[in-house]
């Protein structure tokens, strides 16, 4: 039993309408939603584990495996798409050798597609660890990625 999960549930209250904010806070704390955390939330809220899992898997925000050290999110909005987001994504897929939703074996990078980030005027856009990078090309992206790999960022 982690006291943190209990603390989060108690701070929101166990009303089922607080389920999503609770899951968000647990994920902020743990980086993802683990089997144990879900079971614990279920016990504290008196909602079935599967129901919670059903809610969590509905929303793309929630992750169920530990994310990598750096989270790379490639925007797939329309503006980004027409300005080449797909080849950007392809670049990361080949460079890191993983598919969106996966984490590299060394646990350093995880890759994700995200729905529009709302920075369409700067398309194509990606976010690494909350930092937004705009007006990208594969060449620019490679430079940025290398800096992360070398620990310069």
């Amino acid at each position, binding site marked *: 039993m982690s006291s943190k999960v209990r603390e989060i549930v108690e701070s929101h209250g166990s009303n089922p309408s607080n389920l999503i904010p609770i899951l968000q806070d647990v994920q902020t704390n743990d980086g993802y939603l683990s089997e144990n955390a*879900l079971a614990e939330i279920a016990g504290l809220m008196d909602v*079935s584990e*599967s*129901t919670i*899992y059903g809610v969590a*898997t*509905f929303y793309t925000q929630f992750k169920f495996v530990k994310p990598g050290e750096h989270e790379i999110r490639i925007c797939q909005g329309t503006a980004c798409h027409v300005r080449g987001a797909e080849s950007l994504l392809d670049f990361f897929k080949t460079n890191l050798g993983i598919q969106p939703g996966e984490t590299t074996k060394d646990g350093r990078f995880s890759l994700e597609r995200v729905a529009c980030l709302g920075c369409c005027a700067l398309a194509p856009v990606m976010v690494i660890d909350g930092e937004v990078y705009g007006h990208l090309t594969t060449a620019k992206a490679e430079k940025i990625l290398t800096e992360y790999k070398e620990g310069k960022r």
Partner: protein
Amino acid sequence: MKIDGKDVEFKEGQTVLEVATDAGIYIPTLCVHKDLPNFGACRLCLVKIEGMRGFPPACTTPAKDDMVVTTEDDELRSIRRNVVELLLSEHPNACIVCDDKKLCEQYRACPMKAGQITGCQLCPNKEICDLREVVEYLGIDKVDFEFEYRDVEVERCDPFFDRDYNLCILCGRCVRVCKDIRGMGVIAFTKRGHETRINTSFGKTHLEIGCRFCGACVDVCPTGALSARGTKWHGKLDSEVQTVCGLCNINCGIVAGVKWGKLVETTPDHDSYTNGQLCVLGRFCISGMVNHPLRIRYPQVRKDDWLIPVDWEEALGAVVEGLKKYEPREMAFIISQDVSNEAAFMMLQLAAKVGVEKIALAPSSGDQKAYDGGNAFGVSGLCQAAGYTPDELMTPEDVARMAGRGKIKAVYTTQDVVNIDDAEFLVIQDVYNSHSLKSAAAVLPVQSFMESEASVTSFDGVTREMKHASEPYARSRPDWEITRDILKAFEGQDYASLGDVRAAADAELAKVAKPDAQGTTSELNWFPKHIRELGDPPSKYRGMDLTVLIDDLRVLKEGRK
């Protein structure tokens, strides 16, 4: 309102679909189930309503005055056809569009000849495939899509039922029944879009996640996705009998499915007071219990330390002769709370005739819930009517103890009793070969509650009838009949028929207060809603540990720990 040009009446709160169904107008649906809250997902019941945009679903649209509804035209037919075709593009469909399906249907619930690749061979559906019915109604005989098999592994890791989500059409009935009716939420919709699946949290087994295996999900599944493992291949049933379960005193309504004289499955009776809900025992265990090889096959009498099969006449003769050797005060009768009113009544009649005053109820009522014991209310009511106050009744443990001290020498019991070996003359009238048999002087095989007609009085005070569903096992006979024959030998009153016994028993029971006094009526309000609050079902039948009989039940019990 008007449906298809026909003026129809409706009640406030009814949906268009309900009104149409009442008026005898068929509108196809897959996700609707009469016991479940409406969902509006399958999109087959779309209709046209004047003044409303698009194609509203009949199942969720409330009926209103002066509504004009069209349930069928070319557009609606194309939507339905296309929707079903889309479903069939992912649901193995050979058995649905196969030319030979009519022939197959005569023999099996589900046609089985199509190849594996189409999945039909793997469809274990019950006789009723809602999807097939809809296909027939729409006259679909080919599917214009490349078939896309989901190719997910069939889940067989849990007791009692299998889950083949390749056959699932995501109607959500199972999810709704589990959460909304049974209060469990073992399964849920997970993920979304085309990836949506019915699943448990992180795909845990149902055992791990705390499923009670009531089988409600299996019963509402319109395809073969969920299927009871024990009974999935028995094919078309010969007959179905509405009766009640005798394992606990709720006495849920069940439908006994019989094939070749044997009980092959039990399913919930939707017309019963328990609204088509059962527990794991009633849904999955009865047929296994009834056909179990541990059943006692023949009447037996101990000769030179061996129990020898004999005919009924000889067995009963030995019983009567044996009992006659003892003083009434040296005798005790143990009445199982799992026997019918008629059986208990006859035991009490015999006791009165012979002068036996030591009556024990088994199991002792101290540790049981209100609804434990298949006929607890009926049996204890009859004892009360016969003049025994609860304090005067003994427990089987008392009997065993007194037998140990030589105070009781002859025991006539209708269930297995622990430590009864010290009784000099032990008569066992039971269903299963039990521990007590090793010291029994006579063994009388009894029919189970599926094999003989009888009545029980449930915990709500209502007397319900059990029907003769399957053929009696080997040489077994009904409880009441055996005791009647013994009573006859003691020159007691002769009851010619079950009807006579029942009338007499009912008259006795009428003397006893209704269960309000026992404080059980409040429980009626929630039953059979939330299985969570119901607690575990009884673990024994006539003293026999059910986990010994049903392997899956043992798995369930052990898995819990």
